[in-house]
C-alpha cells in the first residue's frame, strides 16, 4: 500500500478495497513509528485527519470519482490550514492556529483529500538543508546523518520514507526541487502565477510558488490538477483556461529537443552527479530525444541577484511579525519599539534575521540603485537567456543540485556555501519558469541524484510528459530507502 501510486490508491478506495479511514490510520501509525527518528512532521493531528477521512469515505460511498478523494496528503507547514497549528518552521508562529485556509489547502479539501499533517521546513522557507527549522533538523531517510535539503525538507523526506501518499512544497529559489533531488523523489515548481499564493506564508512574493512533491511524475500531474487555477485573492494569480496536466503523459518523446546549458556542467559540479545526469540524457536519446548545447551566460549571477531580491522582499514581508496581532510576543519589554525589537529578536532564528538585515540594508537610503535596481536589471538578463535558449529546445535539462545530500552541520557556519547549493535552481525562479526534479540514479555513498527539467512558460504538461516517459523506462523513482 505504501508504494502504490495515487491512481492505484484512488482505484482501491473507489473499489472499497480499503477505506480512507483505514488508509489514513495506516499512515498515522507509520508516522508515529518513524517520525521520532526522521522529524519530518511538525504537527500531526489524528483527530482532524480522521474526521476528514470519514467525510471522504462518505463522499466515496456516494460515488465521488475525484482523483484525490480519501488520499492522505502531507502539507508543508507554510500553508495556513484552518484549525491547524501553522508555524512556518518558526518560534515566531509557535502558537499560531490558523483561522483560515490557504487556497491550496482549500483546493485539496474540496477535492476530498485528507490533510495528514504539517511538515517540517526551514524557518520561513529560508534554507537549503532544513537545519534552520525551530523544530529541529530533518534526517534524510537514505542516510540519517545527512540533510534532506530544504526548505521543503520535511515534505521530501516524508514522501521518500513513505510517511504520506504525496506532499506539497513551495519553491522560492529551489525549495521543492533541491530537497526532491536529495531525497530521491519527484517535485515540480510550476510557472509563477499558476498556483495561488493566498494563505501561503510569504517569503519573497515575486518568486514564491507552490507545487507538488510525490513519488512519480504521474502523481505530480494529478496533484497539480488540484492545486493550479485562478484565485482572485492573489493579485499575481493568472487567469487561464483550466488544464489537464496529465493529458500528455503518454506521448512518445520522438523529436523532443533537450537543451543542455554548458554552464550547468562546468566547475563546481560533483563527478557522481555529472555521471548520473549524463546517463539520464543518454536514456533520453534512446527514447527519441535530440540534444543541443545551449548557453545561459548570466546564470552564474543568479545567486548574487537572488540574495539581493529575495531578502529585500522578505524584509518587507516579515515586517508583519511584530507581536501585536498574532504569534510570539516577548515576555518582558518597555515601550512599543522595545516590544517590537525584543519580540522579533526572540521569535526569529539566525538565518531569518540575517536575511531581514540584508534586505533592510539593500533597500536603505543610498544603496537602492546599486543593489536592488541593479539586481532587477540582471534578473531581466537572466530571463532573456532562457527566452533565447528556448528558441533551440523544448526543455532544458541538467543537475538539480551540485552534489548529493551533505552531512548535517557540514555547512552550518558558512551561509555563502549553503547559498551556493541552489546554484542551478535559482535562475528558474528569477525567470518565473516551471522547473522540476526527478530521481536519475545514485551518487557517492549511495545517495540519490536529481535530474532537473526546466520548461518554457506554461510548459508543465510537456515536462511531465518527458519525466513520465523516463520513469516508464527506468526505475530510479520507485527505489525506496530502508528506514526500518
Amino acid at each position: 500500500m505504501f508504494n502504490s501510486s495515487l491512481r492505484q490508491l484512488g482505484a482501491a478506495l473507489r473499489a472499497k478495497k480499503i477505506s480512507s479511514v483505514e488508509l489514513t490510520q495506516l499512515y498515522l501509525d507509520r508516522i508515529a513509528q518513524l517520525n521520532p527518528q526522521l522529524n519530518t512532521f511538525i504537527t500531526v493531528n489524528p483527530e482532524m485527519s480522521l474526521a476528514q477521512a470519514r467525510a471522504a469515505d462518505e463522499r466515496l460511498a456516494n460515488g465521488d470519482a475525484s482523483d484525490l478523494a480519501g488520499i492522505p496528503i502531507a502539507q508543508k507547514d507554510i500553508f495556513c490550514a484552518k484549525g491547524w497549528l501553522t508555524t512556518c518552521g518558526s518560534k515566531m508562529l509557535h502558537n499560531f492556529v490558523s483561522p483560515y485556509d490557504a487556497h491550496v489547502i482549500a483546493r485539496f479539501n474540496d477535492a476530498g483529500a485528507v490533510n495528514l499533517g504539517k511538515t517540517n521546513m526551514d524557518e520561513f522557507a529560508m534554507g537549503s538543508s532544513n537545519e534552520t527549522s525551530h523544530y529541529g533538523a530533518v534526517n534524510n531517510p537514505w542516510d540519517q546523518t545527512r540533510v534532506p535539503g530544504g526548505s521543503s525538507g520535511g515534505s521530501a523526506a516524508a514522501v521518500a520514507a513513505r510517511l504520506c501518499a504525496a506532499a506539497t512544497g513551495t519553491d522560492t529559489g529551489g525549495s521543492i526541487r533541491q530537497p526532491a533531488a536529495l531525497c530521491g523523489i519527484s517535485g515540480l515548481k510550476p510557472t509563477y502565477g499558476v498556483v495561488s499564493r493566498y494563505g501561503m506564508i510569504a517569503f519573497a512574493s515575486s518568486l514564491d510558488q507552490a507545487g507538488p512533491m510525490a513519488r512519480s511524475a504521474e502523481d505530480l500531474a494529478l496533484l497539480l490538477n488540484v492545486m493550479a487555477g485562478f484565485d482572485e485573492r492573489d493579485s499575481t494569480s493568472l487567469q487561464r483556461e483550466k488544464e489537464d496536466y496529465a493529458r500528455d503523459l503518454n506521448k512518445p518523446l520522438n523529436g523532443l529537443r533537450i537543451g543542455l546549458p554548458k554552464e550547468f556542467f562546468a566547475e563546481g559540479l560533483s563527478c557522481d552527479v555529472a555521471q548520473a545526469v549524463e546517463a539520464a540524457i543518454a536514456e533520453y536519446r534512446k527514447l527519441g530525444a535530440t540534444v543541443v548545447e545551449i548557453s545561459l551566460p548570466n546564470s552564474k549571477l543568479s545567486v548574487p541577484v537572488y540574495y539581493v531580491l529575495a531578502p529585500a522582499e522578505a524584509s518587507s514581508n516579515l515586517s508583519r511579525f511584530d507581536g501585536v496581532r498574532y504569534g510570539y510576543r516577548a515576555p518582558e519589554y518597555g515601550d512599543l519599539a522595545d516590544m517590537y525589537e525584543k519580540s522579533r529578536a526572540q521569535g526569529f532564528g539566525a538565518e531569518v534575521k540575517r536575511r531581514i538585515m540584508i534586505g533592510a540594508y539593500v533597500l536603505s537610503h543610498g544603496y537602492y540603485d546599486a543593489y536592488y535596481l541593479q539586481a532587477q536589471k540582471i534578473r531581466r538578463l537572466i530571463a532573456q537567456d532562457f527566452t533565447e535558449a528556448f528558441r533551440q529546445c523544448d526543455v532544458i535539462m541538467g543537475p538539480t543540485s551540485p552534489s548529493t545530500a551533505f552531512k548535517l552541520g557540514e555547512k552550518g557556519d558558512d551561509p555563502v556555501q549553503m547559498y551556493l547549493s541552489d546554484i542551478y535552481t535559482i535562475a528558474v525562479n528569477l525567470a518565473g519558469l516551471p522547473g522540476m526534479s526527478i530521481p536519475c540514479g545514485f551518487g557517492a555513498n549511495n545517495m540519490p541524484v536529481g535530474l532537473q527539467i526546466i520548461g518554457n512558460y506554461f510548459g508543465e504538461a510537456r515536462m511531465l510528459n518527458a519525466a513520465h516517459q523516463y520513469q516508464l523506462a527506468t526505475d530510479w523513482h520507485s527505489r525506496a530507502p530502508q528506514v526500518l
Partner: protein
Amino acid sequence: MSLTNADVRKVARLARLAMSATEIETARAQLSGIFDLIAEMQAVDTTGIEPMSHAQDVSQRLREDAVTETNQRELFQSIAPQVEAGLYLVPQVIE
C-alpha cells in the same frame, strides 16, 4: 565589502531587531561574506536594461469596490497576544 559594527547596528535598528554586542560582531562577519558574493553583480553593464520586478508582464487586476469579507474579529483576536474590548493592546505610545 567590509561592513562596520555601526552599519550593522543601524540595519538592526531599521529591521527592529534587538541585538547584543556579540550578535552584532557575528552578523558583521557573516553579512560581509554575503556582500562579497553580491558584489559580483557590480561588474555587469546594465545600461539600457529595464528592471524586471516581476516574473510575468501582466498589469494589476482591479476588482469592484464592494465589501466581500465578513467580520471575524473575535476569531482573529482569539490568537492575539493581548486584547481587550475588541482592541489589540500595546504599550502606551501617546502621553
